[in-house]
C-alpha cells in the first residue's frame, strides 16, 4: 500500500506493532469519493487557477507601481530642479573653501593611502 514511502527496512519498524493491526492496515483500503484521474484533474485545475491569480497579482503590482511613478514624477522632477537651482545659486566660494580645507586634505590623503595599500596587496 505504501511501498513508495518506506524509507527503512521492516525490521526498523517493528517497535512492538500489533501484527493483527498491521495486517488490517495493509489490507483495509477505503475507496475515495473520486477516481485518481478526477483528483489529478482537480489538482491541475487548482494549479492553473493559482497560476492565473499569481499573474493577475503581478500585473496589478506592476500597474500600481507605474501609476504611482507617473503620479509622483512631476513632484520628483520639481524637487530635482529645486535642488539643482539651490546648488547653482549658493555662494561659489563655499565649495572651494570645503575642498581646500585641512579636513578635506586629510580625507583625500586617507583615501589615497587606502587605494595604494589595496593596489600593493593585489
Amino acid at each position, binding site marked *: *500500500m*505504501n511501498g*513508495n*514511502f*518506506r*524509507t*527503512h527496512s*521492516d525490521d*526498523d*519498524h517493528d*517497535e*512492538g*506493532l*500489533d501484527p*493483527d*493491526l*498491521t495486517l*488490517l*492496515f495493509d489490507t*483495509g*483500503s*477505503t*475507496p*475515495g*469519493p*473520486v477516481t*485518481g484521474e478526477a*483528483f*489529478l484533474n*482537480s*489538482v*491541475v485545475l*487548482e*494549479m492553473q487557477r*493559482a497560476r492565473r491569480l499569481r499573474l493577475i497579482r503581478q500585473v496589478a503590482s506592476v500597474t500600481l507601481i507605474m501609476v504611482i511613478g507617473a503620479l509622483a514624477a512631476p513632484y520628483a522632477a520639481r524637487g530635482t530642479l529645486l535642488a539643482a537651482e539651490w546648488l547653482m545659486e549658493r555662494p561659489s566660494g563655499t565649495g572651494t573653501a570645503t575642498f581646500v580645507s585641512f579636513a578635506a586634505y586629510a580625507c583625500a590623503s586617507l583615501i589615497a593611502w587606502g587605494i595604494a595599500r589595496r593596489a600593493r596587496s593585489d
Partner: protein
Amino acid sequence: MKRALSQKALAGADEVSVVICAMAGDDDAYGELVKRRQGSIRQLFRRLCRDPAHADDLAQQTFLQAWRTVDTLKSPAAFGGWLRRLAINTWLQRVRAEKPLVSTTDLDELPDEAAQPTLSEQLDLDSALANLPPDVRLCITLAYAERMSHREICEATDLPLGTVKSHITRGAARLRKLLGAYA
C-alpha cells in the same frame, strides 16, 4: 511553464528525474508526481479523517502547497518523505485550528459508547480510527499504515518520543477493543 520531457517520457521516467523537472517549473512533471503519489496521500488522509471528501480536500491542499514550494526541496530523492511531512503538517494545522490536541489521558476518558462499537463499526477500521483522539489517530496511522518508526513520527509531528510511544501503545489497545471481533 517550462517543458523538459514529453508526457510519455515522464510516465516512464524515474521519480528523481520527474522531481527535478518539477523543481524546474514543469507542471506536467508535477502532474506526473501527483498521479504517482495521490494514492498514498489520499489514503493517509482518509485514515485520518472520517470524511473521504474532506480527506481529498486536504490531499489537494497538500499537493498545491508542495507545488508552490517544490523548488525549495533540497534533494529530489527526498520528495516522498517531504510530501508526507507536508501532509502531516496540513493535518496538524487543520486539527489545531479546530481544537488543541488532546492528551493521552483523554483517551481513557472517552465516553463508554465509544468503547462499545456497533457491529458495523467493529468491522470498519476507519470508523474505529475515527473514535481515537486526533493525535493518537495520527500516531497510529503513521506507525501502522505508513510504517514510520517512533522516532520518525516524533520528528514529523513534533510530539515528544514518550508521547508518541504511549499514543501508539494505548491507541493500539483501544483499536483492538473497538475492533473486538478479531482481538
